[in-house]
């Protein structure tokens, strides 16, 4: 028994997809700046990277405002409830064709694993990238800001690369897990339309029943 509910508001969807586009373009240009490959040249790559960074900062300003004013930040509060069950689902149960154990609702859209992962993104990876990235960008202002005496560019650069590599890892897992719905495109469609068929509450069901 499924019912169609709105999980993602229009702003969330706009935020998610523009953030995805910006992060991917920053990854592509960032890896070029890091000399992993050659596409558009260093200068153009830096320009893209910088432009996308400012766009993303703008987007985050809106997103933070939205999270605070709507109280949606609570979606990311970690919980141990069902954490083990959900982890067990991805490691074992999924191979037995069992359905996802977490019941989503508009009030609690994220399963305990997602909460942890997204919180890590928001509190660890993103700040790592933002802080190191902005320091990188404003390297010439370090003396004015009194940072030059103790901060070294290599530390900032390596932090930025570390953050980027973690985010790439996050992205791979995120994209893969987005395909683990009842059909590969179920979650992705939901992220586009905002609506998803979730299982009716309080009914334990297994696949194929």
């Amino acid at each position, binding site marked *: 028994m499924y019912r169609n509910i709105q999980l993602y508001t229009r702003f969330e969807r706009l935020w998610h997809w523009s953030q995805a586009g910006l992060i991917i373009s920053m990854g592509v240009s960032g890896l070029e700046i890091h000399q992993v490959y050659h596409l558009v040249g*260093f200068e153009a790559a830096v320009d893209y990277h910088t432009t996308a960074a400012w766009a993303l900062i703008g987007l985050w300003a809106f997103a933070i405002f939205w999270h605070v004013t709507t109280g949606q930040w609570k979606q990311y509060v970690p919980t141990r409830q069902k954490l083990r069950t959900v982890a067990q689902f991805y490691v074992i149960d999924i191979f037995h064709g069992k359905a996802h154990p977490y019941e989503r609702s508009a009030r609690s859209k994220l399963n305990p694993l997602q909460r942890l992962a997204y919180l890590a993104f928001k509190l660890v990876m993103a700040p790592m990238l933002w802080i190191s990235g902005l320091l990188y960008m404003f390297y010439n202002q370090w003396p004015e800001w009194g940072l030059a005496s103790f901060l070294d560019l*290599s530390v900032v650069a390596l932090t930025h690369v570390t953050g980027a590599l973690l985010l790439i890892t996050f992205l791979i897992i995120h994209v893969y897990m987005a395909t*683990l*719905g009842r059909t590969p495109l179920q979650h992705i469609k939901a992220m586009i339309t905002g609506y998803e068929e979730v299982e009716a509450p309080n009914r334990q069901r297994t696949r194929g029943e």
Partner: protein
Amino acid sequence: MPRVLAFLILACCMILAAASASATNDFSSTADHAKFKELQKVFASGPEVTKACLSCHTEASKQLHKTTHWTWEFENPRTGQKLGKRHIMNSFCGSPLSNGPWCTTCHIGYGWEDLRKDPVGEENVDCLVCHDTTRRYRKQEGAAGHPTRDTVAQLTEIAQKVGKTNRHNCGSCHFHGGGVNGAKHGDLDNSLISPTFYLDVHMDEMGLNFPCARCHMGRSHQVQGSRYATMARDRHGIDVPGRDDGSRASCESCHGWMPHGKTKLNDHVDRIACQTCHIPAYARGNIATKMWWDWSDAGRTDESGEALSIEDPRGYEVYSSKKGSFEFVRNGRPEYRWFNGKVRYTLLADKLDDAKQPIPMNAVEGSADDPDSRIWPFKVMRGRQPYDTVFKTLLVNHIAGSEEDKTAFWRGLDFDKSLKAGTDFAGQPYSGEYGFVETTMMWPITHMVAPAEDALTCDACHSRQGRMADVGGFHMPGRDFSPVLEFIGFLLVAVVMTGVIGHAVARFVILKGKGGGDVP
């Protein structure tokens, strides 16, 4: 149709003639020297002309006597070293000391035969070599700065047409350092007499057409911008005429500190010399510069004992019995170093550590930690020089002499004699035992400024093996990375990728095996 063509050609010729006339005649002057009685006479020598000049320009010779151009002496206030041609060694012909009248062909004076003594005489200042506008004034080789006989015959006309200095004046000496056009500096050769915009945006004959003195300007004949004391970073910025020191021999003195439209480029100005990006190569004027001069190879003759001169297919002399072997380059790629303007020379009295070759003939100082240092481009001249294997010093080699003077290397091809003669003349201690050391000499590159579109792009340096590959002391994006972090990071990505693919495959295989229907 032929008429139209003829007309067009004629018109073109007239435009060109007008352009070249305006290039040589300075209409801004309020004095027509041809109208001066003092110059309406026949001159028998250079000093006679100078006397005539001094009858009006009474202080000129006194001003000139105070210049490095005259004294060939420069005391570097930053290192305390006594420099100037009379004191330094270079990796071309070594020292001019014993080679008086030959080397002083390029002195701005007349009759300086013995470089151990100071040049003297007010009438011995050579006004014409710098102020000739006819381009016909020539100094005679080996005549201690006196003009050629052909020049003497034209002195009246040359004197009546004097004017401000132009590129061919400075170039008559500075383009030919090292004995051959373009040989020495790498960024100075006679392609700069009539350069295109491509070769040098400021000296472009059809454009700005700057004479050398537009940047190397000075008061009282003191020319600014000596290589002996380079201003590696001009903190003064734009020099406003009438207010500031008038020193224009740096890019910043006109362009300031924020010359680019793009902030990120301006962010480079504090650590990267303008020249580094804007002079992507030296010897850009199709004239080669010397990169290697090996004196140890000199003196070989053919079977009949005649001196050899061997040219390569491009027409460059790659071997000469008188000088040794050479290598040349056009469009040479500079080497880059941190540079704070301080250059320390290896002088005649300095002990060499011949175990540590190459020996720097001059070492540039600077580092990433020094805020007055910037990364500069250099032509690095390499070669081998004679040295005293017992006293461990560079040696004065007596190279040029009169035909009878067989102690001169170019006459006798014998180092035993020439080194003895050179050191005796200079009063330099010499054990009599000589060998050859490999040396380097740094020539900062600052001329032949390319158009903006030919400047280095970011990738030239911001890449793993770019132009800055060997410049140390700082982290450079695109060049520097942590191999450990790369390994761990990309391993993590690879493991996750494998995990994801493994998970997907396992799901597919296991669920299909169970006949579980639709596998996502």
